[in-house]
């Protein structure tokens, strides 16, 4: 099987980091690439939505919210029970796994595109939606429903974080402008998509390599969790997607979203809302194990499962 070049960029970054190369990407480049990726995903989704009715989306949105909450609870139970993690650490890590990773989603989109497999345009909306619920549930799991928690502020932060803003903004623009409207900006957002993703994954490889040290310290349970949790989540995602009647492409993406774990929005939110949780643990699992697993082995596996389900 042919490895996608964007995956090769990830492996290259990982190797460079592990070999302690002096390779570094400027922070502003990484930031810029992620902005372009988020906008591109949003624009593409919005462009698709422009051609269909929006009402049927409501039950889908409800379903993925439930999916995220179940994943978070499941992860929390595993980490607290067999994992014997402290409450705060378990809650924060569970929130990572109940949320999603845009980079993983982008790799899956590129994987499907390279094979000419279509998917529902609303996946970009679901991606944006799925970033949020686990954050709020994670906080409740960590500290209970307390008086002094400023839920307004938390909600504001969750919904107006950079990722969600760019996804929803891009989608709105794509929806209003439609395919012809977007044509003149296709150059930056669509034609360069895979090259931008390649550079982005190069930096992801470097970042992941830095998690390896922490991973050694955390021991085998965290590695097992980082491999097992996405598999459970993917199955849950496949189940929900089947109920919603998704195509094979859509099923693959929903399974991938479910399987993916956040490493940007959730860590920042947890650092503020559950400061006693140790960020090194969640990141070692989500970045050090689950992210590489998903993009290297998970996506093809989820696609295989999705095709089996949809044939069955």
């Amino acid at each position, binding site marked *: 099987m042919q490895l996608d070049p964007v995956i090769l960029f990830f492996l290259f970054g990982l190797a460079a980091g592990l070999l302690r190369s002096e390779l570094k990407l400027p*922070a502003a480049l990484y930031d810029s690439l992620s902005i372009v990726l988020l906008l591109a995903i949003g624009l593409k989704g919005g462009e698709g939505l422009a051609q269909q009715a929006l009402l049927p989306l409501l039950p889908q949105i409800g379903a993925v919210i439930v999916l995220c909450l179940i994943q978070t609870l499941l992860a929390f139970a595993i980490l607290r029970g067999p994992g014997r993690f402290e409450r705060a650490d378990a809650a924060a890590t569970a929130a990572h796994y109940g949320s999603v990773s845009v980079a993983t989603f982008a790799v899956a989109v590129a994987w499907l595109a390279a094979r000419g497999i279509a998917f529902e345009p609303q996946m970009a909306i679901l991606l944006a939606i799925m970033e949020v619920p686990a954050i709020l549930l994670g906080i409740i799991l960590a500290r209970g429903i307390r008086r002094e928690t400023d839920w307004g502020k938390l909600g504001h932060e969750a919904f107006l974080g950079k990722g969600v803003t760019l996804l929803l903004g891009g989608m709105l623009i794509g929806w209003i402008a439609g395919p012809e409207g977007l044509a003149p900006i296709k150059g930056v957002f669509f034609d360069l998509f895979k090259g931008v993703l390649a550079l982005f994954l190069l930096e992801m490889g470097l970042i992941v390599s830095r998690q390896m040290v922490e991973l050694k310290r955390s021991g085998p349970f965290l590695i097992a969790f980082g491999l097992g949790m996405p598999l459970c989540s993917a199955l849950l995602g496949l189940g929900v997607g089947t109920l919603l009647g998704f195509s094979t492409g859509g099923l693959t993406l929903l399974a991938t979203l479910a399987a993916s774990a956040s490493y940007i929005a959730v860590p920042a939110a947890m650092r503020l809302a559950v400061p006693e949780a140790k960020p090194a643990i969640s990141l070692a699992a989500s970045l050090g194990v689950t992210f590489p697993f998903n993009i290297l082995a998970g996506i093809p596996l989820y696609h295989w499962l999705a095709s089996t389900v949809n044939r069955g």
Partner: protein
Amino acid sequence: MPIHTETRTLLTIVTEGVVENLLLADLDRLGVRGYTITNARGSGAHGLRDANWDAATNIRVEIICARAQAENLIEFLREHYFANYAMVTFLHEVEVLRPEKF
């Protein structure tokens, strides 16, 4: 003609970049009238924070104020930040111009 200066306390806080907004809101609530921030990286009890990605950035916050307020701020930081965040605070006296600003 020697210039006229007065003594104030310069409180420096080095901490995680992720808390910037939270910390500034707290400072504001505690009556801080001015501050200066620079981006930083570093190392300490919480390990290496080399600013190579968002979760590993530091900020260096300077606040010039009266001694009493500096102690107030430190008391607050001790209670709300010391336990859970990478943070170092230190202070020393400085001479300021236009003392009414601080």
